[in-house]
């Protein structure tokens, strides 16, 4: 049962932030509501004021600039990202990820800002964006700040945002040369959340790995970087043996929570295999990229 709330519909992002500033923890931003309404029905969230930013077209955009990279407005729908020719060209892994995010109906109405703010460790966009060095721009009535996604999540359904802040933009830096990013979730149905998921970025300098990011989804209470696995990869001459070691490192450092879908042991096993595969796939892509 969803608890009663007062519905507010600001006419601008500025007005939304003023409302948020006034109501603080009693207020909650709703956009697509595809995650929020479910947890409200479960009684996990019971806001007194719902501030609806779904209609704020000023926050719905996809822009690209060679220097600044990709900027996606917070109220941009998953479907808009999935169908964006620009993103398909510059950041194809984002389109691949979106195509398997929940169902068409959810992607039609749900938004990238809402997904990231929901802070579900099983969410698909966070690992991919984190693997590409992405950040979010958050705003309050008193100003804006940019938070790297790998510092954004603090605990299950918790973020580094204050009560008066909301995500206004997602930022992905330009892709470095000789770099590839791949993402895969393990699930039984394409439209399900991943039992676990791995996003990997490999950047090459000649034959050695110049930089690597391994980001795990649903392998802890938050989206987490597998920094030990990254250490195995960075500076190494990449080979199957190195990918295997990286997988073992990720499996050791992750903290999967056992549930109906997988035991902790099985979660670790999946992380090992997926890390190995995604790092290798990212490497294959990096080799042929410009």
């Amino acid at each position: 049962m969803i608890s009663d709330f007062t519905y507010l519909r600001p006419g601008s992002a500025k007005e939304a932030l003023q409302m948020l500033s006034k109501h603080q923890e009693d207020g909650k931003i709703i956009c697509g509501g595809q995650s929020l309404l479910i947890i409200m029905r479960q009684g996990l969230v019971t806001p007194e004021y719902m501030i609806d930013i779904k209609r704020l077209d000023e926050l719905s955009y996809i822009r690209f600039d060679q220097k600044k990279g990709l900027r996606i407005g917070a109220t941009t729908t998953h479907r808009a990202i999935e169908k964006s020719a620009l993103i398909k060209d510059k950041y194809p892994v984002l389109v691949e990820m979106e195509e398997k995010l929940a169902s068409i109906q959810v992607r039609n109405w749900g938004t990238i800002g809402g997904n990231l703010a929901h802070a579900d460790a099983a969410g698909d966009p966070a690992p991919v964006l984190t693997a590409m060095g992405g950040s979010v721009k958050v705003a309050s009535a008193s100003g804006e700040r940019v938070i790297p996604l790998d510092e954004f999540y603090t605990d299950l359904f918790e973020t580094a945002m204050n009560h008066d802040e909301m995500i206004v933009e997602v930022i992905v830096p330009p892709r470095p040369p000789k770099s590839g990013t791949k993402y895969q979730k393990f699930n039984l149905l394409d439209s399900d959340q991943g039992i676990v998921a791995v996003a990997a970025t490999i950047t090459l300098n000649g034959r050695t790995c110049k930089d690597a990011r391994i980001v795990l989804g649903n392998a802890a209470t938050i989206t987490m970087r597998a920094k030990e696995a990254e250490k195995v990869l960075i500076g190494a001459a990449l080979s199957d043996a190195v990918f295997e070691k990286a997988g073992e490192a990720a499996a050791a450092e992750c903290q999967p929570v056992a549930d109906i879908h997988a035991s902790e042991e099985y979660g670790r096993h999946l992380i090992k295999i997926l890390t190995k595969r995604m790092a290798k796939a990212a490497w294959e892509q990096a080799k042929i990229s410009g």
Partner: protein
Amino acid sequence: MERQLIRLNVNNQDYEIYINPKTLLVEAIRDHIGLTGTKRGCDTVSCGVCTVIVDNMAVKGCSVLAVQTEGKKILTVEGLEVDGKLQPIQKAFLDEGAFQCGFCTSGMLMSATAFLKESKKPTEKQIRDGIEGNICRCTGYNSIVRAIDAVAKGKYTEDK
């Protein structure tokens, strides 16, 4: 909680309803407007029986607040038939027997309608992806896919 007046346009007809703002779109359509073709299933954005089309996009009525659809064009299964004439997709469902218990049918029809609008000459895989958000608990997917395929292949164009 104080109710508020909202105006919804469903199947090209305006309705004014007094609702609590927490009212979901599927509740507004079924319980306040009285169009019960749209079903209520899992209530957790999983099963798709509550699928309706809002501004040409399929959405799940159990996870959209009715107030959020004010001023938008909502199409439900009742709006497919126009002047007593069934849409091609409805005829195809009949011809292919794309029902067993029928509970998923209205949602399937709405997803199929939105899908056919944006996909020309889809492959079978694309059709299956197009109804990924709709579950048929009787597992009668093959006949549903055949029905969508028949419309996509133009079998019913003369009926339009």
